[in-house]
């Protein structure tokens, strides 16, 4: 299995954020995590990125154990994250943000190629490359955040709430990009509050409640599940 998480438990101080979470993601798939605010979705991603240290459990990525690796080692292995709330560096230019996204990459040629790709994926970023990231609109910042995460050349990209606070037309665009990213061979983990959208593009999905996986399965099946429809789709 490309990504295999076993019995992951993590705490913020004394508060248990994740309680024995297990999940898998096959190579080339889109896997969604859905759940309410505070269900542990972001904590899960931060554990995978090495920013939050799990209390127990294992994470295996592409044949390597990474639960106690440093964040920069995890990025170098090919797992990168586009965090919730975009978190672009507001007082740096768009170009600098992208360059820093490729911090783990040593060859200037590769950085150049990835920059080309980011600009072809999001032409607006090319136009605005000299602007400060803080001066971009919310949608543009989200594109920048995704492009920055792609600059590391990930084999697995984690996206935390990429549709949050965006106009529907921009959300459409972001979903198209996610499909393109997968089509180019990158595995995607998508965390969303917009469960309908997440389930419609994912292959598999996991439902988190208060740090636990309460339901998992094929995304198409979860879309038909009564509990999911009632709790997350509002149908």
């Amino acid at each position, binding site marked *: 299995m490309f990504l295999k998480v076993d019995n992951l438990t993590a705490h913020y101080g004394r508060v248990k954020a994740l309680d024995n979470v297990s999940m898998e993601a096959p190579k080339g798939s889109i896997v969604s995590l859905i759940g309410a605010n505070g269900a542990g979705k972001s904590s899960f991603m931060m554990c995978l*990125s*090495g*920013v939050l240290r799990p209390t127990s459990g294992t994470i295996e990525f592409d044949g390597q154990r990474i639960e106690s690796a*440093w*964040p*920069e080692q995890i*990025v*170098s292995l090919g797992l*990168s*994250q586009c*965090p919730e709330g975009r*978190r*672009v*560096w*507001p*007082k*740096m230019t768009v170009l*600098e943000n992208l*360059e*820093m*996204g490729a*911090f*783990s990459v040593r060859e200037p040629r590769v950085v150049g190629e990835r920059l080309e790709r980011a600009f072809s994926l999001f032409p607006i970023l090319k136009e605005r490359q000299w602007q400060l990231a803080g001066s971009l609109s919310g949608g543009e910042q989200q594109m920048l955040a995704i492009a*920055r*995460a792609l600059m*590391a050349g990930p084999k697995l990209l984690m996206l935390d709430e990429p549709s949050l606070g965006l106009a529907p037309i921009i959300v459409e665009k972001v979903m198209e990009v996610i499909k393109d990213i997968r089509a180019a061979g990158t595995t995607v983990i998508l965390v969303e509050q917009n469960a309908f959208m997440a389930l419609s593009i994912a292959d598999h999905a996991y439902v988190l409640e208060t740090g636990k996986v309460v339901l998992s399965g094929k995304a198409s099946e979860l879309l038909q599940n009564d509990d999911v429809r009632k709790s997350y789709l509002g149908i």
Partner: protein
Amino acid sequence: MTTIFFQQILNGVIQGCIYALIALGLSLVFGILEIANFAHGEFYMIGAFMALFSITFLGVPFFIAMIIAMIGMAFVATVIERVVFRPIVGKPLINSMLLSFGLSTALANLALYFFKADPRKITSGLASYRFSFLGLYITGERIAILVLSVFLVLLLAWFIQYTRTGKAMRAVAQDRTAAQLAGINIRRIYSVTFAISGALAAAAGTMVGAMFFVNPEMGFTVVLKSFVIVTLGGFGKIKGVIFAAILIGLVESLGGGFISYAYKDAYPFLLLILLFILKPEGLAGGK
């Protein structure tokens, strides 16, 4: 009268440039590690002693002594960061304030024990060259100090703006988690930041040791003044800090020359209090 005035302006600018070197290091550490380092004055003091001993025992020229002090202090600062400060990064500010205050007292007293209290002077060999123009006097030593400090400030500004490591430092200062997620090794950035801060403080200590004296207590007032400068200039704003440093240099020098030299060290704090009352948003405005 006007000659004295311009002489004091010149002295104030030189003093201000030295303050800029010290305050920029403090500001970098505050911006990137979110640590208030009250032991920064001791970096400056130890740096000055390193230069002094390099000249006394190794017999090297002034510039070489300054470079030795900068490298030596960069190393010491890195070790101090790793051992003392690393465990409290991310904790509330009170931790670093107490810890660094204790470290400051410990380092100053160790220096007092080993180096003794008598003030000593760093000989640059440049003090005997005297130049005068328009009735103003300046020694070769002060010209060298002015040029060196301006050069170091510009070098730092260039480093932070254009190099890969400099950009990573800005990224960490603006959003530490985002920097980690981008694959930046923040522990390395912390080390580099302390190394730079220590090296600049050592350069400043060497310069002050040449113009005035080196003694174990020289760091105490300087670190407080540097906090005043960083507060006035705005945390993390390089231009603001440079501007505030020169302003404080001028205030001290003019206050010392025209009001009373005895209160020289009080003027920066009076200015800060005045500014808090009149312009609470800070000199540069904004956050």
